[in-house]
């Protein structure tokens, strides 16, 4: 006698579809640009890194926001308009 065939259901949830976004255009030069440092978690390597960025690239307008959790502190709408690039670093 043939073994009974069962339909067995998947326990996995639904992964909602996501629209994929192209990366923002890269910078042609650093000179005069506003680059935002988004610091999350412990300062760790951010401390020497920020110092070097500012020391070696004084022509860049460096901005920063810092929070202690892995979630970045968001830029305001106005800040988004005037920021050319973001470096997000999670030292968690």
């Amino acid at each position: 006698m043939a073994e009974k065939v069962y339909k067995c259901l998947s326990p996995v949830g639904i992964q909602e579809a996501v629209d994929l976004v192209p990366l923002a255009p890269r910078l042609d030069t650093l000179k005069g640009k506003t680059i935002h440092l988004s610091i999350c978690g412990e300062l760790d390597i951010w401390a020497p890194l920020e110092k070097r960025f500012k020391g070696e690239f004084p022509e860049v307008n460096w901005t920063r926001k810092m929070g202690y959790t892995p979630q970045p502190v968001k830029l305001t709408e106005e800040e988004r308009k005037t920021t050319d690039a973001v470096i997000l670093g999670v030292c968690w």
Partner: protein
Amino acid sequence: MNYDEETVAMKAHMELYGVPNMRNVVASRNSPGGVEEAEKVMPLLLDALTKPLTAKEKKKGKWSPEEPRILFEGSLEEAEKIYKKTEKIPGLLNTPFATYTDGMPVVIPTEERVKAMLKGTSHKPDEMITIQRDMEIRGPGGGGPGGRGMRKKGELVVFQPMFRTATVEQVAVNAVMAGCEPEYFPLVLAMAESGAGGARGNGGGGIVSGPYYKEIGMNVSYGRFGPGNPANKTIGRVGSLLWRNLGGFKDTVTGVSVTTSYSNPMTNGGFLFAEYAEGLPKGWKGLNEELGFKKNENVYMPMQPSHFGLGQIHMPGVYRSLQRTGHGAIARYLGVKGIVGPHNYIEFLIKGVFACREGAITMVMPPQIAQDMYDYGFKSKSDIYEYIWKKSFEPIRDYRMRGTPDESTNGWMGIERTSGKHWKELSDDYMVPTNGPSADGNCIIVCDGQETCTERFGGGHGAAYSIDAWR
């Protein structure tokens, strides 16, 4: 820029946020002072900012992985092999990790069994899991980084960490796998509504309040977490399955290694119990009433229990001696030797309870101890919450030396809640509570038992999810 062990999680996040090709630079955790590492990553970061985009990086599109409703068709024996499937997790040294289960054998969720489970609710199989009422969400212990926020009725529940959603049927599949009965299903759905202990909760834990516990035969007496009671064990277990299958799994430091080195031993296999409201002293509210529901309404309160057994421990007879004859260790500690009770057992219980941890606590109290505390003068649970909270104050200079406030105060950049001032404005002598921002974060549950010790663990009050809404 991320540390090495977070790369898999980072890439998963990139996908979830629609930028799978986002450039990332990986750093090492082991650079003394970070100087060498900063030197190493700086050119890589600048390169990532300036190097022209590739065609792949400019690509638009849609990411829509699909999971078939039917995982497998065949014999039960063959199905068992499929559900036992494992995958290798790099962050766990490529150890096998169960793809669909908690690592233990499961009941195979055939279409017939799932259909039978769905008879436990009036909700339709294809209905999405959503929030069932407008409600306030409180972080564990009523504060901390989780904070508070509002959820609206009808809001889609998104399971962490992979931001998945689920139907009633998908939850039923997990309930079948855990070995639940259809009458348990409204509670399982309430657990799903709560987010099923997502993120790093590993399924979390929870407390049931209301007469429903009798309907489904939950053990509210001795051995609540022990073997033997089908309801406590199987419903408790389903939390891990929901976490695995609805939440998904990401190989991440916070998820598997640093903070959960042993996973959460308290929730392993299910940390679920129910309140024995019949044992409450007159005037003390049940958990359901504390959370805004009526006595006869049934709720599930999720929690992430921790620090089990914190504070003082003692043998049952020591408590009896304290209250009935005024003898023994607790009587000596309280200075009431030879005086018949009721005495303030809470004062003894919380000695040193905040020495090494902060935040709200949950106490599970046998009826006799609850009655003694009522007779002593704590006419409500809130009186005890307030008493504990007031005892927990210490100067900021000491509070700064603790391990977790760096995070809970967001690096001391936030507002201290008792003063409404910035942390950095307050003097070293200013007294702050170590028991969480408010007394109502604490939680007392009365469970059956005679002269057993009061159990204590970290956690405290959370949000309430109606079980009745899912009937």
